[in-house]
């Protein structure tokens, strides 16, 4: 009798699995009430200029903004004028699709988010944010890894709990041994080598990787599982629903794959993807404009694609968060660009979003800027993510996901049931007891 389980499910089961190819796993509880959302984390690499995505359009802050950004400002009237968000803020016309989502209440905005870490390094900031341990580099697991480890037990029949789109698995999923990491499902296949021996070679390579539990072995099995999953389920043509049109870009392609995976009901819980290129030290206008267009048309396409009626209403099961490692310097530089800054905008897109603008706006007066240069941080980014963990994903184990973080209060970014946060690290905390520290290889096999 062949059991379908996530790890090594192909062994001895190929006929049974093959029979399921292309079909939905309707037996999974994806659509059932009470189960958890798919969390999709979009990371804008390089430091997105939130001040030009959501510029002030009125009051004293508008004056400071125009003075700080004589050439890069989003105007309040005329060509390229900011679209009105409310009386205080506007929205870049390059990102108008997101404004539509904001206006229909699906998009929540959180201003002036970031880390307390006084740090303007891309690489340290991303490391800190994605490990979920600000100030501590080289934490062996990412925050999403620890979320997956600490949330309700993932059913055995879940085929693909987590997916990362792109060349490499991101730091937020560092150390996760079940993630499927792919760039392009159409070429993600073991379809080379002398054809006569492909099957036997594959069986042989599987058995070599099952023979031990070192890092290379465990992750080799993970890769073999991933290729089985993609070959069996995700190589077919995909037609977006509801007339959604994805941008012709890597970002659009990656979003489309995620939509496909969500609809295939493989049990997806977490997905990640990146959009890079936001480090606009020079010539920002054109770059930011095209990036915002890619971002906003992509997210709009995804939302439209998933926003069907009845059983096709996947947006009720989607929580998407957009973050970046930091914002940009308030004042533009002389090269039509901006250098590294501090506080920034986070966005949450969901059928269960509360909509609206959240967080305390720190102001742009000279005395209000972080160190006199940058938008200050008033909301810890972990607060936003913790609210999603608790209200949308039912995981209150903040002590495991964000060690050291306490005092959580919801901002009201999404709807959902509040749970008492559990701040305990305790045994099983992968940060404080792991293979990196002990040198114990057995930790790698978990």
């Amino acid at each position, binding site marked *: 009798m062949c059991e379908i389980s996530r790890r090594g499910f192909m062994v001895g089961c190929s006929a049974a699995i093959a029979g399921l190819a292309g079909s939905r796993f309707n037996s999974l509880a994806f659509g059932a009430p009470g189960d958890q959302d798919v969390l999709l984390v979009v990371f804008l690499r390089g430091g997105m200029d939130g001040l030009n995505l959501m510029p002030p359009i009125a009051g004293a802050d508008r004056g400071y903004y125009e003075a700080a950004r004589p050439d890069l400002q989003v105007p309040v009237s005329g060509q390229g004028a900011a679209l009105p968000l409310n009386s205080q803020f506007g929205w870049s016309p390059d990102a108008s699709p997101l404004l539509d989502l904001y206006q229909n209440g699906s998009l929540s905005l959180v201003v002036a988010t970031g880390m307390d870490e006084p740090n*303007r390094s891309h690489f340290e900031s991303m490391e800190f944010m994605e490990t979920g341990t600000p100030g501590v580099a080289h934490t062996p697991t990412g925050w999403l890894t620890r979320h997956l480890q600490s949330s309700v037990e993932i059913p055995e029949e879940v085929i693909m709990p987590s997916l990362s789109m792109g060349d490499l698995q991101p730091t937020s999923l560092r150390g996760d041994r079940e993630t499927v990491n792919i760039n392009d499902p159409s070429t993600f296949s073991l379809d080379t*080598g002398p054809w006569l021996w492909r099957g036997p070679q594959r069986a042989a390579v599987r058995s*070599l*990787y099952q*023979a031990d539990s070192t890092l290379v072995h465990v992750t*080799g099995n993970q890769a073999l599982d991933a290729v089985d999953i993609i070959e069996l389920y995700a190589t077919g043509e995909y037609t977006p629903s509801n007339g959604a049109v994805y941008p012709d870009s890597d970002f659009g392609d990656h979003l489309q794959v995620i939509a496909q995976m969500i609809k295939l009901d493989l049990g997806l819980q977490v997905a990640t993807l990146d959009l890079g290129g936001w480090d606009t030290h020079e010539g920002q206008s054109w770059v930011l404009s095209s990036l915002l267009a890619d971002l906003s048309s992509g997210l709009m396409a995804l939302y439209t694609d998933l926003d069907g009626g009845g059983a096709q209403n996947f947006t009720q099961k989607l929580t998407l968060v957009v973050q970046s490692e930091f914002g940009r310097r308030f004042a533009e530089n002389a090269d039509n660009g901006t250098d590294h800054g501090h506080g920034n905008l986070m966005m949450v897109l969901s059928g269960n979003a509360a909509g609206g603008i959240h967080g305390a706006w720190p102001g742009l007066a000279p005395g209000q800027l972080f160190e006199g240069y940058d938008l*200050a941080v008033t909301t810890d980014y972990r607060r936003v993510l913790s609210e999603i963990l608790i209200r949308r994903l039912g995981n209150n184990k903040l002590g495991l996901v964000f060690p050291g973080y306490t005092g959580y209060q919801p901002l009201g970014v999404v709807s959902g049931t509040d749970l008492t946060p559990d701040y305990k690290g305790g045994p099983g905390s992968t940060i404080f007891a792991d293979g990196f520290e002990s040198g114990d290889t057995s930790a790698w096999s978990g």
Partner: protein
Amino acid sequence: MRRHRLRRTDVDTREAPTSAHQARAAALERTYQRATAMRTARSAGERSRLSTPPPASPGTQPPLAVQAWNRLAFGPAPGDLAAFDGLGPDDDVRLTALVDQQLDPGSISDTACDAKIAASGYTTLNKSLSQLWADHVVADVEWSDRIRPLVETIFVTLLRGVHSRRQLFEVLADFWHNHFSIYGWGFYEAPTWVHYDRDVIRANALGNFRTLLEAVAKSTPMLIYLDNYLSSDDGPNENYARELMELHALGDENYYGTIPRSQVPVDGNGLQVGFVDEDVFAVTRALTGWSLDADPWWDLETGNGGYYYRHDWHDTGEKNVLGQILPAGQAPEKDGLDVLDILASHPGTAKFVCRKLCRRLIGDFPPETVVDAAAQTFLANTAASDQIARVVRTILLSSEFRSSWAAKIKRPFDIIVSSLRAANADLPFIEDHPESESLDWRFYQTGHYSFAWHPPNGYPDFAEAWVSSGPRVMTWRLTNWLVDYNWTDDEYRIDLRAETPAGVRSANALVDYWLDRVLGRTISDSDRTRIVEFMAQGHNPDLDLPLDTDDDVQSRLQSMVGLLFMSPEFQWR
């Protein structure tokens, strides 16, 4: 003691203050607390956790020849392991001889590789910077002509990796390209790539770090990639200055964030032990005017494509860099040159650069002892023209080098090149050649394509970054393509039967022969048995297979070697 334990209580947990004033006051207080904590942590050497032990390695220590050829080379080619044994009476003598030979690449005849390069018909590799600029930038050529210097460098890098006998030089060229990483596909970066690879990276790969640092600072692609060519007193651009400190010299392990300079510890020579944003701003000012030849300045195509210093753009005021004062009104260029002097001779730079070299040549988590030894060599030889060679020698001849097998996994480029070397393959690496283009595309899909990492920190050099399913599967797909049949030319890409001695025909013998070629060592009995079973396909493994008459047996041999390239043991070095 571990840094995170200390920091755990240090993480601020307060929620959003109700006013900006409160936010600012709270931020200042936190900054002060954090600075205190960081000082304590860093003085205890806990800034990075890189000295923690790696996961225990599988298998046993291989022969030193195997270890050496996997560390200071892209794996052994036929004959390399045997040649090692001929270098002296014992391993100490042999390793020293090999390292000294490899550190003097001019002494190694490389005529076969040179001949392959000559036969490949590259047209840009011998052009000077001004020629590259004239032919590929100023001349209004099509994109494919514009980027040819980059494309040919990508191909010749593969060719040299496979065929050059100066393997350590190739390993270090790869290392420095990653250390001073530039995304090569930029509008001006691609046409000047030959210059960057040849005149900057390779010219200094075994030379002096200070010289290399200045060559990078003044190189056309770096000036453009990190915007310093635009940076002036009126409009400073801190992009390059920040990465110079964080990525090229002192490293992120010596970054103290945005705290005040006065809170950074000072060493015995009065220098700050690390840098803060104030230093980034000072270095930015010191490097204003380091620009490119052009008149008017904004029309680069009016120039020769080379470095040009604009004193009228330079901020001549006083600067404080790591506690050292650069007085106002210094001679042209001197501020910037002083900065490079300070950085290149700083103990933090020595430690950071040496840790990265140890990470490449030894393991992800090199012992602090070898990092210290290498940093001592680095600092004792700051004026030596072969400073880097001396540092590398310290690392390769250390006891830590010899006692650490399987502390690294191969990245996709390493796997591709080591497969081709083990198989004695002779593939074309030529633009527009269909086989080369196919290889090129498959290489791109591994996620480790040459000169294609967008941010300036270079491809990660930790196992954890490369063990996910993306690079694993796409690399397996590539190595299986290497052993596959080429239907266009009606032949195997690599004819492994022709590479197998005539007397080797049984499944047992074939597997043992190719295990020795590909791995140079034995593997567990159970793994070997599994591979023999694949090769035998139910036949008695001691009986000769009809390899010379049965096409299916040859294709099985091809597939078996492909299996070795996919095997766990081949992923380690």
